[in-house]
């Protein structure tokens, strides 16, 4: 039985994710209460804003140490979204704080000099993605239609094997990274219509559609 825990630490759009879970009948809870993490089978870690304040919030709230138990010790899957994805890296050009280091890599600023005409940054809008269509995370996804992106920094994963999918913007930027049961998505699945719903369903392993 799935129980998706959407971590509500004042960073990111939990309402839109709740809306999708209601519509798709995915059992979920939205909480910042660490004591309820035990009930969860999967975690979604949203994130908006800058790297340092976001990771500080995660650490100071005690959520991080609770997640370490659930994700690293118990092996429950987690998906970080946007800045929530960036937190999984070792660090970021955008801040001074260390990241979680759960998927080796560093968050870097997109190299706008490779874009031949405006717009440059931020990378804003719907972009297609590439990847292995047989991958469990990408099944049923219209990769040509892609997802909604809104960012200036990207996840430069150290191990190419951890990159599930890329999008092209001044180079091939990893947009889904994964190491074992830990996943990061650069785009906003909660704002990407049917593709976004499908990705969330693929993550929690709910078949159908």
């Amino acid at each position, binding site marked *: 039985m799935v129980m998706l825990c959407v971590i509500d630490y004042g*960073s990111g759009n939990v*309402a839109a994710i709740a809306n999708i879970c209601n519509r798709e009948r995915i059992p979920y809870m939205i909480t910042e209460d660490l004591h309820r993490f035990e009930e969860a089978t999967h975690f979604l870690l949203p994130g*908006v*804003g800058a790297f340092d304040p976001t990771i500080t919030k995660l650490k100071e709230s005690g959520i991080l140490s609770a997640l370490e138990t659930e994700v690293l010790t118990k092996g429950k899957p987690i998906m970080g979204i946007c800045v929530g994805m960036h937190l999984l890296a070792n660090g970021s050009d955008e801040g001074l704080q260390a990241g979680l280091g759960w998927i080796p890599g560093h968050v870097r600023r997109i190299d*706008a000099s490779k874009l031949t005409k405006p717009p440059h940054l931020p*990378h804003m809008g719907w972009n*297609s993605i590439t990847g292995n269509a047989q991958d469990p995370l990408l099944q049923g996804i219209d990769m040509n239609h892609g997802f*909604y992106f*809104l960012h200036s920094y990207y996840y430069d994963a150290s191990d190419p094997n951890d990159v599930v999918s890329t999008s092209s913007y001044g180079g091939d930027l990893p947009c889904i990274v994964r190491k074992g049961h830990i996943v990061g998505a650069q785009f906003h699945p909660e704002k990407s219509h049917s593709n976004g*719903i499908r990705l969330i369903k693929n993550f929690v392993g709910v078949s159908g559609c």
Partner: protein
Amino acid sequence: MLRSRVVPFLLLRGNGLVKTKKFDDPKYVGDPINAVKIFNEKEVDELTLLDIEATASGQGPNFALLRDIAAESRMPLCYGGGVDNAETAARIIALGYEKVSVSHAALERPELVREMAERVGRQSVVVTIDVKKEGLFGSSYRVSSLNAKQKHKVDPVAFAIQCAELGAGEIVLNSVDRDGMMQGYDLELARKVRTAITIPMTVVGGAASVDDLQALTDEMAPIGAGAGSLFVFKGKYRAVLISYMRP
């Protein structure tokens, strides 16, 4: 490949939606939550909501309504209206909006753009520039605000450059003269601004057909092609019907 965005622009007044002509004569066109539900089904690229009373009335954003809209939306959202400080912008982002737009407040105090960028990140800061032709035979473009009631001796291109330098993540170019007239975009204005800045841009005001959207995206892709009347009216009698189309 990054695609152009086709963006419905919805005008909020109180708890309802209206559509204007040249920023005047607001006509009631329906309920915002209902419109969001329809646009969800149509898988809209992005949706912009502008509260045309929030600044003028001094009441600021209608947070209760904004919360309900965000909870219903499965598409990216931008909100503008009555935002005059970074804290308010952060509060709106926390409700589930990807972007917050400022207009009058940025003209009064351009530093606001920098403060917002520091608080919520550049990618979420939009400056909407309302542009009106002025002078003999409409020979020059000037910025206006407060539903085009206040004129500023500001050149839109110079202001767009200034906002981009201060930390705006996007410029929305809103033509007062074309608003609701359904006679096509002001492409000349769009060109002037597009060549002056490197941040993303959305053009709104005048789109009457897919051909109008296409003319803009063919020339300046990837760009935001915004429209109000096109997506809320049908036919020459302007019957209210929410629709969506892409080139």
